[in-house]
């Protein structure tokens, strides 16, 4: 296997892991809010979170490009701090996180909804405040779903293509991921490289699904 192929595989895996880490805290927080709280604009939040699931990934990528470009609302702020996002590895992680988030939120939310509120009430009668109830009762009882959601999000991140290519491009050694690489190599007629990346993709996906199934059994 060439160094280039190996680097693409390593970069993609690390980026997908980072994206999973990035989406975990906000994803779990939003899932809990949607499952347990009524607040104004809840339907809007619900819709926005699910949007990347139904929108063409390329369209999501275009939105991210606008947000993070130097003239975009987020990009301008970052540019002032000297941070460039578009067409960098950071853009890959952001695209992956945004695309994986809906799967994490939906799965984790179902987990929170399954935890009967009465366990939380019992914890309250034992003197536990809201944060302790969440940490010691709600979260552990929803852990299996949160984990399953994280694996789903990770898998989605691993295969992300449409948003990545728009906001991060396909720069060799910098932003080229497995999915983008397969496309780029196929386009360029480099079938051997494309095939190698394909085999690697299948292997990583296989291991991820196997691991998640085992975790689900043990939890």
């Amino acid at each position, binding site marked *: 296997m060439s160094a280039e192929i190996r680097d693409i595989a390593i970069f993609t895996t690390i980026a997908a892991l980072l994206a999973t880490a990035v989406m975990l805290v906000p994803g779990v927080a939003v899932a809990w809010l949607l499952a347990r709280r009524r607040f104004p604009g809840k339907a809007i939040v619900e819709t926005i979170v699910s949007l990347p699931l139904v929108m063409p990934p390329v369209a999501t990528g275009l939105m991210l490009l606008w947000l993070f470009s130097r003239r975009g609302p987020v990009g301008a702020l970052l540019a002032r701090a000297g941070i460039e996002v578009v067409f960098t590895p950071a853009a890959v992680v952001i695209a992956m996180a945004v695309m994986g988030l809906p799967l994490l939120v939906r799965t984790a939310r179902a987990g929170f909804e399954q935890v009967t509120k009465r366990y939380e009430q019992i914890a309250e*009668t034992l003197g536990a405040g809201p944060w302790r109830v969440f940490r010691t009762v709600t979260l552990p009882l929803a852990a299996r779903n949160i984990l399953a959601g994280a694996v789903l999000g990770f898998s989605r991140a691993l295969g992300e293509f449409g948003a990545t290519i728009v906001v991060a491009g396909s720069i060799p050694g910098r932003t080229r991921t497995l999915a983008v690489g397969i496309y780029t190599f196929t386009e360029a007629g480099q079938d051997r490289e494309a095939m190698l990346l394909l085999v690697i993709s299948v292997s990583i996906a296989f291991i991820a699904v196997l691991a998640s199934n085992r975790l689900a059994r043990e939890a």
Partner: protein
Amino acid sequence: MAAFDLDFTVHQGDFTLDFSVSVDGRALALFGPSGSGKTSALEAIAGLRTPRHGRIAVNGHVLFDSTRHVDVPARHRRTGYVPQDILLFPHLDVRENITYGLREGNRPALPVLIDLLELSRLMDRRVTSLSGGERQRVAMARALYSGPDVLLLDEPLAAVDLPRRRRIVDALLGIRDELAVPLIYVTHLPEEALTVADWAVLIDNGKLVASGPPREIMA
């Protein structure tokens, strides 16, 4: 002896419970057929259900008073609550369940509880492996270890095999007399009300039908 001062109205859909008892005693039995509103009364005292109006005080501690806008949150009420379905935390073992409550103040020492409720052989077991009677004893220990001013029990004998009921009754007597924790418990079994309670309240269809020493009520 504890001073129970309970006078409140709970609405639950079309159902209304009017509850009014003011008595000094060690154990108060709420007696009546299922669906009569006994559980709602316990939940109102525990702070898990908000009465429409009224006043709830135990030993002079006002937990709820609609005219003075007092509604102490469940976690500050010091009411140990054992619901009918017991609800031990499934992800914690017996010891972790019992020691969940963290309140400061006077709580019975763990060895005393282990001795009184015969828990020594259960401490490291998983809660899913316990029998109905064992669960009941563990749940009572969990509630007591949080240092409650009053212990609320919903049908403590319902999940227990007939031959093992004596042990639970003995445990209730021990809590009442040795630990001197006052009890309020819900039951539909007359014999249970007779053995443990020194005051009984008969509820039917949300109305308080009779209130007095158990022997007079059951007669």
